């Protein structure tokens, strides 16, 4: 932790509006997200903590740890990237990119970086296990308004394999984007 200590400037808080939910519901949503993240880490510490203790009942039940990733020689070739949300009200749409691979679960997202054309808003791992499950990672990016393509890269791991996948999302009009896997 010491490597991350710094001299903080006098930070101003980002102005925010409260959500419509109650304070407890908002906090629970944060807790749930952090616990899901912990369950997905598969670290010895995380696994031990979650294996020993069953739900306290405060937050939604902790999801099961992810299944083992595919044993394919190149586990990253089966991932498809596409834009999934189109806005038609005339506003500048977010690029909402889904990375999916139905039937295969266990990919871990180590990081997402937007290198040109926009700002990363959020990454949601909606992957599910069981019948009909699969990889479902949704990345939301706000375009910078310049009209240039959005370039972003995703750090993925699958079992012991790791890869950084590069993508380009180009607005095609009408609020849609075409997503190309750059390798």
């Amino acid at each position, binding site marked *: *932790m*010491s490597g*991350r*200590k*710094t*001299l*903080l*400037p*006098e*930070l*101003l*808080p*980002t*102005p*925010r*509006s*409260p*959500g419509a939910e*109650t*304070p*407890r519901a*908002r*906090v*629970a949503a*944060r*807790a749930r*997200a*952090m*616990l899901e*993240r*912990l369950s997905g*880490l598969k*670290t010895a*510490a*995380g696994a*031990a*903590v*979650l294996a*020993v*203790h*069953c*739900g*306290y009942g*405060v*937050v939604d039940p902790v999801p099961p740890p992810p299944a083992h990733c595919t044993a394919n020689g190149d586990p990253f070739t089966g991932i498809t990237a596409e834009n999934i949300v189109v806005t038609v*009200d*005339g*506003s*500048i749409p977010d690029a909402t990119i889904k990375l999916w691979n139905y039937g295969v679960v266990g990919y871990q997202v180590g990081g*997402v*970086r*937007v290198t040109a054309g926009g*700002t*990363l*808003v*959020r990454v949601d791992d909606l992957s599910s296990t069981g019948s009909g499950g699969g990889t479902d990672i949704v990345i939301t990016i*706000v375009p*910078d*308004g*310049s009209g240039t393509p959005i370039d972003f890269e995703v750090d993925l791991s699958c079992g012991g394999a790791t890869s950084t996948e590069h993508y380009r999302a180009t607005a095609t009009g009408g609020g849609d984007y075409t997503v190309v896997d750059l390798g």
Partner: protein
Amino acid sequence: MDWIALVGPEQEENLSLRYLAASLIEAGFEARIVAFNGADDFPAAIATIAGAERPPLLVGVSLAFQWRAPDFLAFVMGLRETGYRGHVTVGGHFATFAAAELLRDFAELDSVCRQEAEATLVSLCRALAAGAAWQEIPGVVARGGDGAARFAPMPEVPDLGLLPPPVRGEPARCFDHGIAPLVSSRGCYANCTFCCIAAWHEQTLPGKRYRLREPADVAAEMAAMRRGQGIDIFVFHDDNFFIPNHGKSLARLHALADAIEAEGLRDFATVVKARPGDVTPEVFRVLVERLGCIRCYVGIETDADQGLVTLRRWGRSSQNHRAIDVARALGLFVCFNILMFDPDTTLASVRRNLEFVEYAADFPFNFGRVELYAGTPLLARLQAEGRCRGDYLQWDYDLGSPDVQRFYQLAMACFVPRNFGEAALANTIQGMRFDLEIVRRFHPDAHDERVYAAGRALSRRLALDSVATLRELLAHVEGGAGGDGALAARLSARARAVEGEVRAEMLDLAAALGARVGRGLPLTYLGDRVATPLQRAVPPELEVTP
């Protein structure tokens, strides 16, 4: 031996937790600081507590900052989810003011420790260890039989001369020079309407709301920090480092400098905060020449007459300008924030503040909105006026007129990535300026006036770009035309482009400084490293549509 987990932010050494830890250790407990700077730290923080060989007797969580309270409450929920059944208490400014609401809404919490809690926490831990009643310990808030909060009496404020010094860990470093915080006082004599620190100390009345440590004690702590952790740069986090009397302030600075000399401490630097009225040539010459000050945050907050009244700053525009003039004359790096938006802001106030930023553009600045914090007079006022939306975790309000509100939303649509979060350029560029000062102070052989001037020009460019963009937005609002979304998109794109250029030059400059110094890393890199992409994202509610 029972152990106590103290959870809080640790981007810097967390002095409040480390003072508490020192008191617990003195009382015979083991205390461990558990860093929780954000969601990334959740696994390690949870593992430290839930994965420990035996659970801690008590988990104490810092709720000093209202805007970070949801993160820490979520941590507590997560901790309970993993099965921790011990006592959880929260403390700090926000917890003190929101104790009743927190205990009402979060069954995961057992108690709240109000105010400065060294004695309260030690007594609470002793009672828990002995299986004794703890609900009446001064400072404790607990649930009564009906579930409602029951407040034990306020604790007495501690005698600063009797507190054990805060425990220390691995310090931050800039070019391998150790950096660590300390305080030479606690409390605040001012009464700004927006500030929960002033409101917090007001609670302790009729006790002293502003207490000073003896200069010899402060100097001894500094010398110990040099010996123990190799600290060269001492960051004073006092809410009021200066006394509101220039003669007494001058005498105290001389006394501290004399005591430091007596300790044999040489080749050090200091960082302090000041109110504009503190900044006089006489006081600041001593601050720079005898106490080695290399950075001073000056609490300008606003230069508009309206803002000075609304925020109850007890100051004048002329003092703001004098502070800048004095810093310039002494060659001292200062930085400041402007609370551009408050509940009474007018477009004329905005113009006045932009003129001030332009006047002081050679110093890094940032701007934002006055947020409504628990316990503050401003929150009480807006609640009485029926202007607040939201709840105790996050209050929101509309500005004083539709035009100002529109200008604010346009400004946020363009400036969130620049202004907010540790990765925001308005913050990281202060790290670059700090690097320049470290080199000038500690590495005169590596100091180059041309590089120094280039760094200053870079922060000036960013400041003036912010002013120019805000003036375009202001003209647009005053002109009454539509097309807000298109304008925000165009100016945002331009702002991001400028930031890209400035950031690239800043990193080049940091690399050049690093090469010249030949040891450690510049703070510029640290600022970038601790940040995440999400910190640059614009909250959905601040996006502007056409």
